[in-house]
């Protein structure tokens, strides 16, 4: 708020001094060497065990392979985005319930938040895959993976949003109230927009977890990247090469998400809007 305000980030990521800079450089160089060595070792192992044999790699020369993987990637992105949006909506509702001050709502929402945070995603997946159909709930495989992933994330999203709301100085709310705005408007126009800006990096980190959770799609037979990779593996009997590629793609997706979070955080500091 004030011009002299020091954020937590400033404290954590203070500009390093010359000594620290030297150390950072040294450690970076050492880890680079180590990673290259490990990589070389891995390639060497592959060579020895015959994993570099053409029969494990030739199909990457075919357009159809890439098209098939790309379709899986689209599936992954669709599930992740839909889950993300759903988790955000559910999380928002749970968060508003939890901070509503109404006893029953607080209790119910707190319980739901703890429940969804505590239960492993795979159990939710099995619920929609095995249990729900027995009660006549027949869903497309897309929803059989999207719903459990969303459920599993919504409690965390609720808590992230709540921490953002708590971080908004209470003077913001008081100023809005004193201008004659009703509570609901104060929350939607003043408090929540600021809370949301605070937690964008944390929400993107949660999206990384959502992306990883989508790999449970194989359980319900939804053709995501992982599932399509498995198909390739059984077709060509080439486990290592395909999984390696899939891992690289997942790493790239999540790296980009983390980059976006970091970029946003830095960008905000630069413009120093909040």
């Amino acid at each position, binding site marked *: 708020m*004030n011009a002299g305000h020091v954020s937590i980030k400033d404290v954590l990521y203070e500009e390093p001094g010359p000594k620290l800079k030297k150390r950072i450089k040294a450690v970076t160089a050492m880890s680079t060497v180590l990673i290259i060595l490990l990589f070389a070792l891995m390639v060497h192992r592959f060579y020895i065990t015959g994993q570099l044999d053409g029969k494990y790699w030739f199909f990457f020369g075919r357009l159809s392979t890439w098209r098939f993987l790309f379709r899986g990637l689209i599936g992954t992105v669709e599930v992740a985005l839909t889950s993300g949006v759903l988790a955000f909506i559910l999380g928002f509702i749970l968060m508003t319930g939890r901070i509503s001050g109404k006893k029953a709502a607080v209790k119910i929402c707190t319980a739901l938040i703890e429940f969804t945070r505590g239960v492993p995603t795979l159990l939710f997946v099995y619920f929609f895959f095995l249990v729900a159909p027995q009660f006549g709930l027949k869903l497309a495989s897309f929803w059989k993976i999207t719903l459990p992933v969303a459920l599993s994330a919504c409690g965390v999203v609720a808590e992230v949003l709540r921490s953002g709301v708590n971080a908004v100085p209470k003077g913001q709310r*008081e*100023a*809005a*109230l*004193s201008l*004659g*705005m009703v509570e609901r408007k104060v929350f939607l*126009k003043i408090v929540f927009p600021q809370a949301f800006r605070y937690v964008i990096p944390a929400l993107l980190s949660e999206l990384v977890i959502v992306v990883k959770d989508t790999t449970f799609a194989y359980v319900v037979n939804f053709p995501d990247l992982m599932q399509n990779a498995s198909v390739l593996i059984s077709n060509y009997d080439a486990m290592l090469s395909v999984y390696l590629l899939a891992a690289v793609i997942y790493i790239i997706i999540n790296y980009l998400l983390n980059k976006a979070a970091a970029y946003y955080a830095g960008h905000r500091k630069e413009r120093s*809007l909040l």
Partner: protein
Amino acid sequence: MIEIKKLNKYYGDHHVLKDIDLSVDKGEVVVIIGPSGSGKSTLCRTVNRLETIDSGEILIEGEPLPEDGKDLAAIRSKIGMVFQSFNLFAHKTILENVTLAPVEVLHKSHAEAKEEAMRLLKRVGVDSQADKYPIQLSGGQQQRVAIARSLAMNPKVMLFDEPTSALDPEMINEVLDVMTELADDGMTMMIVTHEMNFAKQVSDRVVFMDDGRILEINTPEKFFSEPGTDRARDFLESIKN
């Protein structure tokens, strides 16, 4: 305009406002002074119900202050409030800070609200900063914007809770000047402040509080030359140096 009768407030066991009786007439400027912790802010904040009260009554233009809901919001929209820490909306530009409530609460058109906002920003001397964000302004500028934001609602009375206490000395006067102009224009004001010269200049009456009680209500001439209680005399002595 404002009538406060037999008001009591507790924080838990702590009795912070004790049998407060005070009225502020239309066009009057009342300055509240007193030592830290005497309950000045709390009193100020009960008037637009940012603090609830435990007993007593607050009447605004003869009507009791509503407890909650739309009625309370409607009354609040007519009572301007300026805070020690400015509290400008951090995610909105200066212009948006001033236009938000007129659009959202009074349902003015954007064009109309903007025109009025620019007029007010000009009046307080920050119209050149309209497109910046609060944090890009100095404290004095921010506080003047906060005053403009309140004025945009066309308030019948304005509350100020130590509006210059968070400011660097060289910025205090630019805010006090704006407030003096408001007083000259006939605005009804209730001001908590430690600026004694300002209090002498603009106030019609001075209220001295200590330990949750009003000990004295007097004209500024009388109060500052011959305070009616020892506590007030001690207080005036203590802030001289």
